């Protein structure tokens, strides 16, 4: 859990306090903290003067606006057809082995979360994943383990 502190106020100053400001504000909180806490959503509701239910209702619609705790690095593995055909399962096995978690889980040190996602627009370089914003493509078990080791050292 993180403390939102002044963040919501700063973001509201930046993006405005209209209904259309809601998505950019929630997106930037997630960029910083990787998920939305109840506290953060209540704070956003207060700043924008809308009900917390509205904020939660909107956030829960979007898969990238997570309301469950997530690690510092969110790994999204594409499970759509081309990535599935080109070795997605091997990538998942490698990641599960390395991180000692299953898809859908977060490591106990809160560093990594593993999630499946739908086509991320790199099918010609399948299999592909996103780590936070960054795409990694044409993966092999070796390649993905090198990438994760780098993240572990960050």
């Amino acid at each position, binding site marked *: 859990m993180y403390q939102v502190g002044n963040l919501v106020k700063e973001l509201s100053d930046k993006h405005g306090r209209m209904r259309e400001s809601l998505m950019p504000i929630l997106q930037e909180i997630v960029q910083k903290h990787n998920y939305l806490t109840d506290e953060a959503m209540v704070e956003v509701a207060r700043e924008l003067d809308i009900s917390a239910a509205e904020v939660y209702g909107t956030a829960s619609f979007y898969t*990238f606006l997570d309301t469950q705790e997530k690690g510092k690095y969110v790994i999204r593995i594409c*499970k759509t*057809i*081309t990535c599935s055909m080109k070795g997605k399962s091997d990538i998942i096995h490698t990641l599960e082995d390395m991180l000692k978690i299953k898809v859908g889980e977060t490591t106990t040190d809160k560093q990594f979360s593993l999630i499946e996602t739908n*086509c991320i627009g790199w*099918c*010609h370089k399948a299999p592909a994943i996103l780590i936070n914003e*960054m795409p990694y493509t044409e993966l092999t078990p070796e390649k993905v383990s090198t990438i994760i080791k780098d993240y572990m050292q960050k």
Partner: protein
Amino acid sequence: MENKGLNKVDLIFEKIEPKEVLIKAFKMSSAEIIQNILDSGLKGRGGAGFPTGLKWKYTAAEKSSEKYIVCNADEGEPGTFKDREILERVSDKVHGGMAIAGKAIGAKMGIVYLRGEYRYMLLKLMIELDSFHKMIKEIGYDFNIEYRMGSGAYICGEESALFESIEGKRGEPRNKPPYPTVSGVFDKPTSINNVETLVTAMMIIQHGAKNFTQYGTKDSRGSKVFSVSGDTPTPGIFELELGMSVQQFVNVFGDGDTKAVQVGGASGFCVPRKKFAETIIGFEGVPTGGSMMLFNSSRSMYNVLHNYLDFFTEESCGQCTPCRVGCQQLLKGVEKVKKGEAKPTYLNELMKLADSMKIAAKCGLGQSVGNAFKSIVGNFREEIIY
């Protein structure tokens, strides 16, 4: 039917001087720009294929001091990745196309809705947008573009869901009418166009409508960018003249053992080998927003269908029953048939369900689930059962 064969074209990624094209466009009247686009026969490149000139004409006809050009960069259709490449390589032409569209319909504001999966590009795009705004100012024209991000919802590519999302709400499609040309984002007249459509429109202004109509067929003018993936030795992005048959496509991109091509993504149609020769890729045959997925004989079409149904079940916004329940039933249904828990004839019931969804679903997502379902079950029934 006309068949143009497979020809590579270089229009979308062609290097041009955007400033010159814009100066040329801004000297034209709104009606002249629209006439050029109408004459070109350009149809939307996002999948639905609505004539772009008409869309602009209708939006131009609305009386409102506030109108919008929205660029749809949500690109969530499985197997599509051309809009990302276009934005990476020629964003100046995307922004330029928006300004030209703005001039045509009388809009001073443009919004690009970029899918959350492409956020890694945003920083670079912001720098390029800055230079674009500077250039527009130099020409002495008033047009401003903003970027809005999606957050991982395929349905937000549907135009009215996209507007809801820009407005800060759940991305649930609206009832139509009113159409976006009358009441779009912020309830203002809006022309929403795909990334590639806007670039193509700019190139039509650059080269003239005549130049464009020499490519393609009566129903599918010009060229378009294809996203090629799956069992192919040459996956990637290719700009091709419209009007080729699936066979001609497979001759170039297949691996020698192509069993089926899914044209138009999960919401498109599956073309089996025996229909390659007679099927034209375009609005007269199988339309596509660019997604071309090839499958060779080592692939199980059951797995393909299951993957698509799983996709739709997850991505359905859940707002209307035919789609929410229909997607789940189709998915469970094929699983049951596969496991032998339901008789193969149960597939006929499911085909009827897919038909009902086409009629009863509120938006294009639910309406098009049947495309893949019926064309895969219809052509590969044995693979679904055994």
